[in-house]
């Protein structure tokens, strides 16, 4: 294990896979969480190349609507132009870099820089330049100085994703078969394609830890559940006991699913064949009946795949999925090696009755900085990060050995084969299979010079 070669590894742009991240041994150096130079490399080699979650179309329903989001450390504007087209722009004036939008969201015909007054249309074109005739003698080529737009944008089931890297594979290719697991968050409860909307506002808060602490936690770290014991005891679940309505976990196979070539991973519950879902949300008959109706409809429309129940997961590298209620998407924005800014979106079926939306809005209090479990998590990440920064602490790697070597390809149970490489933790209770997958892919990105090295699935496809 290379415990002290962080700086050398960065200079060579190698040594991530063979030293700092040692998957054969299941060990990872603390340097990747606390080293300033590694963090700077991450911004360039990771966040400037991957696909990132930007927002939801329901946040910008009308022409002129905008929502200020983030990609890596940088502020971006998600907006709908006058013609209805969705754009994502860097929130920085082309003249001197000032933010052209300093509100969180709203509607506007133009984005005007308050510094010198350059003004841009919602299509990003430079529209207004003070003293254009007098000072520029009408010679400034406005067409060259529009807002910087992401080269790749994808609208998928109302969610908006973007990448700064022109050669990156299209979003759905980036996902691969993991799309089916993402759909567990984005499809309606009754099995219809898409149909979600954002419920209430976006929660935003900062945690003094590296962004990879929450990222690995939401990959499927079921080992830390002891941290939430106090919440279990309180019994805030929507049927009046436990944390959530999770009676299915008593009868389902519990799986960790990872996609080695993509870096995405999730937990899932795989229900037995022909067994009905247990009732849920029994504090409210309207909500309980709604979910019972949806489960029946989903079984009819999705067949065997309806046996798959979502659990926390992650789109590589920093978009967390929480398909069950509270149904959320979270982004772990890097804010330096020692700080993370969390943004959490809450989603609900657009077609759900108002009573159901109101009930689920109340249940949001489960998550977020003022919630229950997230407070436990933040305390863990905060202190773990701080205790890993010291000169002595950095010499000792973390252990990721749990379940190493027990992964299964082509996993199948009662007639349903699961996409991805699977660790069945029903009896094992926990594994670090998904966490290893996150760091395996992270190390590949940190070393790879191009997508020729990263899009390895294309090699296999070309050979077929």
């Amino acid at each position, binding site marked *: 294990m290379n415990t002290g070669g962080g700086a050398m590894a960065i200079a060579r742009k190698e040594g991530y896979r063979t030293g700092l991240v040692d998957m054969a041994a299941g060990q990872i150096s603390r340097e990747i969480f606390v080293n300033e130079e590694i963090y700077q490399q991450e911004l360039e080699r990771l966040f400037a190349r991957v696909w990132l979650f930007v927002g939801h179309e329901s946040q910008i329903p009308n022409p002129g609507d905008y929502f200020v989001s983030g990609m890596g450390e940088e502020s971006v504007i998600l907006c709908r132009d006058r013609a209805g087209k969705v754009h994502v722009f860097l929130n920085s004036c082309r003249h001197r870099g000032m933010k052209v939008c300093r509100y969180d969201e709203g509607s*506007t015909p133009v984005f005007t820089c308050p510094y010198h007054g350059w003004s841009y249309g919602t299509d990003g074109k430079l529209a207004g330049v003070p003293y254009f005739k007098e000072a520029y003698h009408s010679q400034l080529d406005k067409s060259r100085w529009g807002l910087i737009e992401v080269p790749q944008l994808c609208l998928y089931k109302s969610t908006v994703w973007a990448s700064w890297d022109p050669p990156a594979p299209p979003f759905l290719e980036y996902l691969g078969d993991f799309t089916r697991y993402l759909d567990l968050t984005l499809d309606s409860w009754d099995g219809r394609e898409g149909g979600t909307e954002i419920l209430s506002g976006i929660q935003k808060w900062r945690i003094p830890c590296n962004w990879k602490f929450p990222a690995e936690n939401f990959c499927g770290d079921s080992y830390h559940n002891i941290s939430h014991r106090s919440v279990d005891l309180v019994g805030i679940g929507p049927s009046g006991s436990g944390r959530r309505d999770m009676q299915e976990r008593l009868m389902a196979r519990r799986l960790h699913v990872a996609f080695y070539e993509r870096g995405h991973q999730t937990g899932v519950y795989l229900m037995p064949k022909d067994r009905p879902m247990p009732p849920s949300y029994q504090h409210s008959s309207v909500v309980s009946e709604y979910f019972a109706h949806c489960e029946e409809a989903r079984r009819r429309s999705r067949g065997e795949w309806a046996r798959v129940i979502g659990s926390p997961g992650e789109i590589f590298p920093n978009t967390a999925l929480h398909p069950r209620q509270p149904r959320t998407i979270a982004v772990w924005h890097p804010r330096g090696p020692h700080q993370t800014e969390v943004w959490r979106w809450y989603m609900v079926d657009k077609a759900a009755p108002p009573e159901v939306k109101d009930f689920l809005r109340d249940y949001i209090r489960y998550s977020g900085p003022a919630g229950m479990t997230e407070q436990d998590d933040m305390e863990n990440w905060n202190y773990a990060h701080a205790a890993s920064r010291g000169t002595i602490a950095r010499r000792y790697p973390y252990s990721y050995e749990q379940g190493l070597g027990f992964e299964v390809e082509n996993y199948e149970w009662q007639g349903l084969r699961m996409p991805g490489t699977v660790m069945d933790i029903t009896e094992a209770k926990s594994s670090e299979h998904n966490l290893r997958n996150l760091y395996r892919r992270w190390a590949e990105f940190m070393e790879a010079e191009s997508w020729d090295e990263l899009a390895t699935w294309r090699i296999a496809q070309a050979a077929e």
Partner: protein
Amino acid sequence: MTEPINVRLLAAGTRIVLDDGAVAEVVSNPLDGVWVFARYLSSPDDPTRVGSEEMIFAQDIVEIRDTA
């Protein structure tokens, strides 16, 4: 020197005088405190601008001729 004009208060229909002597009518106001959209009613320096719509910079507006 004229007093600065708060362009955020200029409603559609307001007639404004620009520093080159042109007169324009506000069409819409983005309320950014920097620009208004206006249509030229007269333009002694460049008569071809009359009838056209442009973004007018706040510091080019020297007088409010009449309000909407």
